[in-house]
């Protein structure tokens, strides 16, 4: 059996930032376990630029952003094992993993940081009718084929879902010579960033059909086409609006799901909306000493926020290992109305710093007011020129305010148009 103070599950941006921060906070015995061949996570295949504007103040590609953290992991001599799959984590923080070199690994940890990221919703989660022809894949799978393996998975492409990965892949496939026929979006708005709609679709005259979905897939061995249809306000296909589009590839960009199988096996409580663990301000789950950060906790739109969140978790894990945390007194955070969720869901009022609450809205607002109340009384009111479902927001609760609260209280966030 191996022994480490902190075991980090996942070597993407979340895992690396958490490990680096924990090391900087004085914990020496840290091990990162990564399933892929290299550290870096999904950033390795996100070769487009736009990463790091918040954190580094410059535009980096995914691999460049990851490399800055890989360099730090190496410089700080943080141990890691790649090609290593974590199979199970027990309640007493024993981590079971396997790789080709070591075989089965049993690792006893004082603290565990869950940083497994998320995965794309596959076809099976959508229940699209049609044949089981080849040529149907998630946008992220196509991204790996093109950007890492160096080959094109199709020539005539329809993309279902206008999330950022779908938009980015519309441009990428077009640049490499494919014809992207259209992007279909079930909702009446795109969840992608405006800049991606402009630079990935409009620049290349790729049509974006809103309130439209794929209702049938055709083809025996290979996809030969799809049938698309407009949907009504209940997202049901409108009879008579069907259209056949010839294509050999259907890319799916229809949402991301935090990868929480390990979390569930431990028995950690999850948030119904985020599909990630319920955590406190240090991103500690309801199991003491087990932390979660990054896309496994809630899906982020910017990696910069993943980094910041993971540093908090790394600091929390370091404090835990060093025995610096006292018995917590929690208050709870709750999103009301358009505020779909808040992370963290609970806050220890004995915390000695300010606490940033991250939240996401369910619809678009212009010139809105974000209001924060404690046990019904308004404590913060902030104007926001724009709020959108695709853009995570945050509000800071000052430590001086926290000190006024008492255990069991509730913080609520609402948005007024």
């Amino acid at each position: 059996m191996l022994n480490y103070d902190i075991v980090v599950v996942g070597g993407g941006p979340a895992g690396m930032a958490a490990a680096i921060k924990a090391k900087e906070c004085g914990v020496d015995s840290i091990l990162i376990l990564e399933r892929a061949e290299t550290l870096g996570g999904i950033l390795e295949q996100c070769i487009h630029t736009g990463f790091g504007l918040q954190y580094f103040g410059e535009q980096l590609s995914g691999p460049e952003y990851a490399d800055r953290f890989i360099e730090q992991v190496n410089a700080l001599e943080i141990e890691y094992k790649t090609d290593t799959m974590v199979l199970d984590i027990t309640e007493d923080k024993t981590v079971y993993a396997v790789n080709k070199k070591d075989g089965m690994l049993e690792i006893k940890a004082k603290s565990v940081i869950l940083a497994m990221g998320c995965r794309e919703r596959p076809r099976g989660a959508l229940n699209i009718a049609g044949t089981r022809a080849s040529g149907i894949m998630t946008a992220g799978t196509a991204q790996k084929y093109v950007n890492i393996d160096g080959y094109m998975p199709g020539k005539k492409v329809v993309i279902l879902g206008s999330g950022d990965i779908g938009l980015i892949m519309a441009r990428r496939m077009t640049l490499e010579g494919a014809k992207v026929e259209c992007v279909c979006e079930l909702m009446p708005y795109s969840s992608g960033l405006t800049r991606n709609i402009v630079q990935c679709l409009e620049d290349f005259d790729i049509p974006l059909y809103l309130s439209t979905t794929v209702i049938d897939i055709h083809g025996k061995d290979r996809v030969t086409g799809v049938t698309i249809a407009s949907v009504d306000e209940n997202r049901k296909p409108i009879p008579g609006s069907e259209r056949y589009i010839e294509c050999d590839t259907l890319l799916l960009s229809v949402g991301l799901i935090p990868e929480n199988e390990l979390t569930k096996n431990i028995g950690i409580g999850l948030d119904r909306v985020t599909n990630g663990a319920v955590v406190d301000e240090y991103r500690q789950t309801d199991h003491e000493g087990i932390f979660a950060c990054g896309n496994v906790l809630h899906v982020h739109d910017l990696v910069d926020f993943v980094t910041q969140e993971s540093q908090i978790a790394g600091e929390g894990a370091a404090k835990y290992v060093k025995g610096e945390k006292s018995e917590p007194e929690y208050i709870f955070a709750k999103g009301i109305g358009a505020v779909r969720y808040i992370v963290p869901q609970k806050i220890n009022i004995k915390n000695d710093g300010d606490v940033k609450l991250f939240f996401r809205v369910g619809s678009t607002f212009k010139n809105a007011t974000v209001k924060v109340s404690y046990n019904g009384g308004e404590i913060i009111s902030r104007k926001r020129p724009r709020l959108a479902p695709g853009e995570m927001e945050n509000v800071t609760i000052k430590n001086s305010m926290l000190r006024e609260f008492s255990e069991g209280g509730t913080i609520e966030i609402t948005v007024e148009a």
Partner: protein
Amino acid sequence: MIRNITCVTCPMGCSIAVEINEAGEIISITGNTCKRGETYAANEVTHPARSLATTVRVNGGVYNVVPCKSSDDLPKEKIFDCMKEINSARVDAPVKLGDILIENVCGTGINIIATNHCPAK
């Protein structure tokens, strides 16, 4: 003539209308809420430019391709010409992040730079 432009300088996504005359000169810019939007809209009408991120084939590397980007924004109308030149290029492993893979792509004065490492096989 009026060109409608969605500003992508920040997440606000302002709709900006740029009025141009027959010589292509800007007469007016409206709809922007800040100075940066005005500059963006003017550039979009007169000389639109885009950064390019793609891959270059590698000989003898652990991967078939290495990701790369343009060192600066490229003229928008030259993007596909640049793709052609980049896709016909071959570089030898090992490649280091930051290496210049192609100099002066399509005579633009802009270089294509590796954005990741590709060790030799």
